């Protein structure tokens, strides 16, 4: 038995109806294709964000092992290649309490950018605990 989708009392589609149907289906497909391209972008963004996150954490953990007082930490910028892309890593250091001149605490912010877009941002305080030279403990 031959089956097709028809209106009641009709045997099938005319060529015009089929064309209109295709047009409607094409219009419906547009958001799906858009979703497809978004997925591609999202996938790339997730990969980039993961790379940026690991770069930021690596930098932060590296700073914790530096055998120098936190006061000696300085602002710093560098480019880093990960997964074939060039990320820009920015480290900002500022005293946490401006009113206290001898304050050893430093607020360190590590940001990772890709094409001017900030993908990772981590902050931590550094002071006597984290930056203490091991042979003085």
């Amino acid at each position, binding site marked *: 038995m*031959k*089956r*097709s*989708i*028809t209106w009641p009392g*009709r*045997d*099938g*589609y*005319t*060529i015009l*109806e*089929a064309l209109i*149907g*295709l047009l409607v*289906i094409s219009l*419906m*497909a547009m958001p*799906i294709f858009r*979703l*497809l391209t*978004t*997925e591609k972008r*999202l*996938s790339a*963004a*997730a*990969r980039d*964000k*993961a790379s940026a*996150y690991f770069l*930021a*954490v690596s930098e*932060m953990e590296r700073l914790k092992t530096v055998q120098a007082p936190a006061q000696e930490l300085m602002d710093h910028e560098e480019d880093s290649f990960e997964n074939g892309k060039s990320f820009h890593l920015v480290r900002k250091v500022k005293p*946490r309490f401006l009113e206290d001149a001898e*304050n*050893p*605490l430093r*607020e360190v912010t590590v940001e990772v950018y890709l094409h001017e877009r900030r993908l*990772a*941002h*981590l*902050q*931590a*305080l*550094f*002071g*006597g*605990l*984290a930056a*203490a030279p091991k*042979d*003085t*403990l």
Partner: protein
Amino acid sequence: MGCLRSFKNNSGSVAVVAVILMTFLASMVLIFAARSTARFKHVRNFEGERQALYTAESGIEFACYEARKPKDSVLTDTSLTILDGGSFKYNPFSDSLFGASEVVSEYVSGYLWVTSKGHYKTFSKTLRVKLGSRLPNAFRAGLVLTGEAPVTVEGGTVQGPIRSKAGLIPPGAFLEYEKLRDSLPKLDEKVFKDAMDSIFRASQKIDSGQSKIGELVAYNSSNPPDFRKDSLLNHVGNVLINGDRIGQVLVVEGPGIVESAQGIQVSGNIQLRNVTLVAQGDITFFDNAKLINCTVLSFKRVHIGNKSDFDGTIYCQGTVEVLDEAKVQPYTLVYCLGRGKASNQQVVTLDGKATMAGTIISDCSSGITYVGFEAAFSGILFTKASVDIRGTVNGTVIARDFQSRAGETEPFQAVFRDGKIDYYGMPPDYAAPIGLLIEPDFAIASWEVLE
């Protein structure tokens, strides 16, 4: 023609095929999109949790910085609450970028256990660190006791504020040290030493003939020391003062002096009040003996052991041992010369769950003042020689150098030289207790993420 016919009739299924294709395509796209979104969220969660961890860590850094400040300035900050025993709780910051942190610290066994909870957006992390002191600041050469009133000795009793000051140092003294440093009394060593020597000379009287060398003089419940007849009971032989009745405390009330050319042992169910004990040899306390406001002078060794309880003053030209759950009550002064001891021998020993509160002055150029793993000391510890501290010390330590050994069978060796610690000579995982602080400073002894 056939093609044209099929084009002209209306029995095809192009719509069905198209819908099926589109549905399949849409499903695939949705699956991939869901995976990518989940991955993106995963990375974002990682970042949030990591930031919460850094926020918790920062809370500890911040709180320790605040706690290091002089107490007066700390108290101006209302978000810091100092609890009993040196513990504190603190909410150091709440920042839109940084998040918020809650810090609670507890002072346990000479260490500061700090727990910090970091909040960042919807993420939370709890971190706990065990803090000890940074050693180079704990040990400095020379006498640093300074203040207005000198300490003198008169008739065996220390006059001056040093006793009360030692007793006033609370657990967690690191918070108050800046204040204490300025008010610690000056120790006038010459006056102190002269007075001590005069006490020794005064006690060396000729034997009254009541006993002979080798003869044991036993005082007990039937024959207690009686100071009403003679305030000085002088013997050539060994003296045993023993509370020999179970359930009945033998109370020996002073003032009075028991002197022996050999040794004195106090033991059993006994309580001595206001009694001075002087011996050329060992003076030992055993078996729950309790001494209240007593003065002890020995030329050789003072041993406080086996759950005995002491309150008073100890002068010893040899060594002093406080062992086996013995208690030395607050304000006690131990003045020890450590004569005849080599640099690697213990002059003052606190060990075996012994506790002592007061002042230890180990006035010798060689020998070690030792606080064992299970012992606790609260007060001022001053020695011109070395210290080896494994247990709990609350208060202040002033020593020339710091000796340690990797194990009980290993020899002592100096591990603090030129401002640095030689870790090879120390037990594994060693960290000095907070009580060693001369200037408050912290070092991490352990670190763990709780949740």
